[in-house]
């Protein structure tokens, strides 16, 4: 729902991370990790990013989004599994003490730049 705000943050972080290199190069792709539990729709984010970036030094850059699965670990019996249904109960021992060890990510992993070589 707030994909535009997130897109603007990505632009800010990307520009500041590679500021010195933008004189000689152009950002081609921005690699993101977005967890499946986060309240974001990747397609909406791509759309908002393209629109927001169009008037900046990142115009033309594309987002490459890796969707990270939700993985739970049972704190009682240590079993670990990918959570695909909204059920946070251990399949093995039925404990409710589940730690979500992935699926909440919202990060910029890397930025790919094309630089001219002399």
């Amino acid at each position, binding site marked *: 729902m707030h994909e535009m705000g997130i897109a603007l*943050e990505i632009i800010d972080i990307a520009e500041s991370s590679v500021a010195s290199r933008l004189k000689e190069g152009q950002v081609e792709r921005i690699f*993101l990790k977005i967890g499946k*539990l986060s309240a974001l729709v990747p397609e909406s984010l791509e759309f908002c990013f393209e629109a927001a970036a169009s008037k900046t030094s990142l115009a033309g850059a594309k987002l490459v989004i890796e969707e990270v699965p939700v993985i739970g670990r049972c704190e009682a019996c240590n079993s670990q599994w990918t959570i695909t249904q909204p059920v946070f109960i251990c399949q093995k021992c039925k404990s409710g003490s589940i730690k979500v060890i992935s699926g909440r990510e919202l*990060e910029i992993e890397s930025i790919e730049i*094309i630089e001219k070589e002399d």
Partner: protein
Amino acid sequence: MPVNDKNTTSRKKIKVIRKVLDINEKMAQANRELFQEKGVFVLNMMSSPGSGKTTTLEKTLESIATEINSAVIVGDICTSNDANRLSKSGVPVVQVNTDEFGGDCHLAAHVIEKAALGFDLDNIDLLIVENVGNLVCPAEFDIGEDARVVVLSVTEGEDKPLKYPLMFRECDGAILNKIDLLPYLDFDMEAVNNNILQIHPNMPIFEISAKTKKGLTPWLNWLKQKVSEKT
């Protein structure tokens, strides 16, 4: 003759590894430190629009404001209607309208930091943040709170928790409101409780009617207990 290719380009991948919400997280941590220093317990109340958050808050303040020095930050995209209602309780209230910030659908940490400047925090023990009515986004944004509750009303459908797992996982308690309407609805209380506990096992669930005050006492006791543990 050697080819003089001036158009050689190279592709380089620069590792960044930075959280997009980094700035909000840092601000939330700063808020947390301020509230710790001033001995203020912060409660973040979230829900969809129309669940009865403001009425629940009105009735909560009626009961506890005499025992606990309280203050409220109310978030809405626009209008100060909620702040006007809540200020009748005699408690200091600051209204935040997110349309000034671009119409945000949630409150973020920097907004809370600014709003908190409107209070004398040395004389406040409980700060309640009534977040923007929205079951999706507010759960993503740490504002430096000590506890989070989600308010769901019995007019909303038993499967809401399953549709919004992040919200129900991230909150420390759930208030099930408008139970006075149950005789007029086909709402399945057992199903909604099961759905909530499936997402968040052992989550405290408070079945209340903010209108009639039925069931309010366990909710108030839980809140008072949390506040006294910190302040």
